[in-house]
């Protein structure tokens, strides 16, 4: 009986060996190679004060001009952002309507174009917001799909070669967002960023500017940690992967508003980012009309009201004034 058992056990062992005792481990995918961050393109020209000049304001509706075309169409089509908090973002509490500082300008322009028409002005009917990416701004203006772009659009000489701009409607500056604790410990500028990790969108000039500012101050530059966009930087900031974010103060204001532990302390700006409203190069009458609206907003205090409502609190309560038009005006 024992022999039989031993034989059966032997058969079992043999069978197990023949059947194979197990499989090879399932392989893990190979880690993809890390992409090297894209460098910001070198500018083709140097922006000087004269590049900030636009056409002289005029509220005259030129026959056969762009403003008349928009009136006839019954809709002003404006390219905007929908995820730049405080500048232009969808508000889920308000039916996902896009709200913010930039939107106030689009509304004012729409009102000025349509308020004298027979039907009067109605935002939903007369202004169509088209959400666009930053990369689409110039292309969509050039091919005429949109009339205007109000989307934190910095005026510079190379862009003037492709499109037209209104006069500066906001003097944005590049600043640094830091944690509340760093601000309270006395953050005083780029010299306090030495050895810290700073985030900005991949390929943006903001990262270069912060390094240049550190070199100018003669201090060690911060460690650069790029992300896909500014909101991606906020995620890195919230996860403790970076210590600071640099960018336009308007954008940083929106980020600070989403995180109670993030602040934009009062500081010396790293760079100037003058914002303008973009239009097609041929639509000079529309640009003049927009400039007239901006002057109207200065006169009636609606610019100040918009700033106070959307940005002031998030920019440490810093007061701001509407920039005066750069003169002499452009001719054309």
């Amino acid at each position: 009986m024992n022999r039989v058992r031993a034989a059966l056990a032997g058969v079992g062992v043999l069978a197990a060996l023949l059947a194979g005792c197990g499989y090879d481990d399932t392989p893990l995918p190979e880690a993809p190679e890390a992409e090297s961050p894209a460098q910001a393109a070198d500018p083709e020209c140097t922006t000087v004060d004269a590049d900030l000049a636009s056409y002289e304001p005029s509220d005259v509706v030129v026959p056969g001009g762009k403003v008349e075309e928009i009136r006839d169409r019954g809709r002003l089509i404006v390219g905007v952002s929908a995820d730049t908090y405080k500048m232009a973002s969808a508000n889920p509490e308000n039916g996902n309507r896009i709200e913010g500082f930039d939107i106030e300008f689009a509304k004012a322009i729409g009102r000025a174009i349509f308020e004298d028409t027979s039907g009067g002005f109605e935002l939903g009917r007369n202004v169509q917001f088209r959400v666009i990416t930053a990369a689409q701004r110039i292309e969509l203006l050039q091919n005429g799909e949109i009339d205007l772009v109000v989307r934190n659009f910095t005026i510079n000489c190379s862009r003037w070669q492709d499109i037209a701009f209104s006069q500066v409607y906001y003097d944005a500056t590049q600043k640094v967002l830091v944690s509340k604790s760093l601000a309270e410990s006395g953050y005083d500028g780029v010299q306090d960023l030495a050895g810290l990790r700073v985030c900005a969108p991949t390929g943006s000039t903001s990262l270069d500017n912060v390094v240049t500012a550190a070199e100018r101050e003669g201090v060690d530059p911060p460690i650069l940690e790029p992300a896909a966009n500014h909101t991606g930087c906020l995620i890195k900031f919230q996860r403790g992967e970076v210590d600071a974010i640099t960018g336009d103060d308007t954008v940083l204001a929106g980020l600070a508003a989403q995180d109670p532990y993030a602040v934009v302390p009062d500081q010396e700006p790293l760079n100037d980012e003058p914002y303008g409203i973009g239009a097609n190069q041929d639509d000079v009458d529309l640009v003049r009309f927009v400039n007239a609206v901006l002057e109207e907003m200065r006169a009636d205090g609606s610019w100040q009201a918009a700033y106070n409502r959307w940005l002031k609190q998030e920019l440490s309560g810093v007061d701001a004034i509407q920039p005066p038009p750069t003169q002499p005006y452009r001719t054309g």
Partner: protein
Amino acid sequence: MTQSAAAPPPPAVQPATAPAQPGPAKVRRGFWPAPTGKPVGTGIEDTPSLLNRLQIIGMATVLLFGLLSGLVQYLSYAADGRAADDTEQLVRVQEIQSTLLRVDAIATSLVLIGGEGDREREAQYDEAVDRVFQLIAAAAEAQPADEKALAALNVEVNEYATAIAEARSNIRQTFPVGAEYLSGASKALRDDALPILRNLVDANTERAEDSMGGQHPFWLLLIGVVATAVLVWLSIALARRFRRYLNTGVAVAAIIVIVTTLVASIAAWRADNQNDGLLENELRMAVDQAAARTAGNDAKANESLRLIKRGSGALYEDPWIAAADVVEDRGDRQVLDEWNAYVAAHQEIVRLDDEDRWGLAVQIAIGADGAPGGLDSTAAFDTFDESVAELVQENGTATTDELRAGRSLALVGSLLTLILGMAAAVAVVRGINDRRKEYA
């Protein structure tokens, strides 16, 4: 045991070594021995030694036959068991993949709903996430070779679930960073978690297919033929030495070997055919429908993402089209009607979004009251998802049930063959003993 009928009297065989006989000098060498039961020649080996040798060869042959044939059948039994386990694991990892994409589809639609959310949808999300973690734990327990990959997957799913929780929390506070958390989580899911799952699906598909090819009718037949040939040779050797051409014991052993071989080979051949059928039908169906379900949920998530990333819709349409192609290619006819109903709703969403009527597009996507044309993309998709999940479940279960049901016969067969091999050995011993008695 008694001797069986004698053969017709053949001419006497004159052994080559026999001394010269008086009488006619012409001696004819023939096959058949004289029917006397007595050895007809002494040969170079004495008869008891020859009988011992033949007995050992005969016994060893039939015992080896029983062992090898039983072993092959046992291997078939084990292979079918493994095939059932591997198939179950394959269906399980595919369910993880489908459910994970389902989680993403629900998460993205929740973000689209925004505001206070949708309790029912949130419960579906929580349930789907729980299911993913349960499946990962079950899969790790079922297949040790998958443990490392599943551990890596577990980390990715945890990170995804954390990011979605952050996204939901931010979106609830109307912060746009919530959408960034969401799109980042969806991207990481596709970049980091899905490649692990693809490896798991590939590895388990290969294992299941290999295990289902574990039936060996040819080897059973070959072992039987070799054993029979040895027994025939043994009979001839006995017949040459004794005056009876048939040894009942050896003949009984040969019959046992032949019948066992025939039965086992036919059973293995049938099981092999059945496995081929399962592989080509039920299992293929389960695998294809799981792939279609995964791709369908991927498409639905991309639909939501195009609306969440308002203004960047085109970025998400190409992945939608690629996923839809997979559904149309691999989805069964039974579910394609439901898929097409969803596609119609999606096309309307794209049309409206392209015309910048984003609000109306969202109404269709979330099935809001008063959506254009009464369209409800989510409801249409859920109907498809439910049907295709049922098909996966049905065919996966049918495959494993069939594999498990058939395998017990192979186990019985392998034990029976072993016993029959021993019985045949006894028959050989008795047959040879009869000759030994006759010689004595």
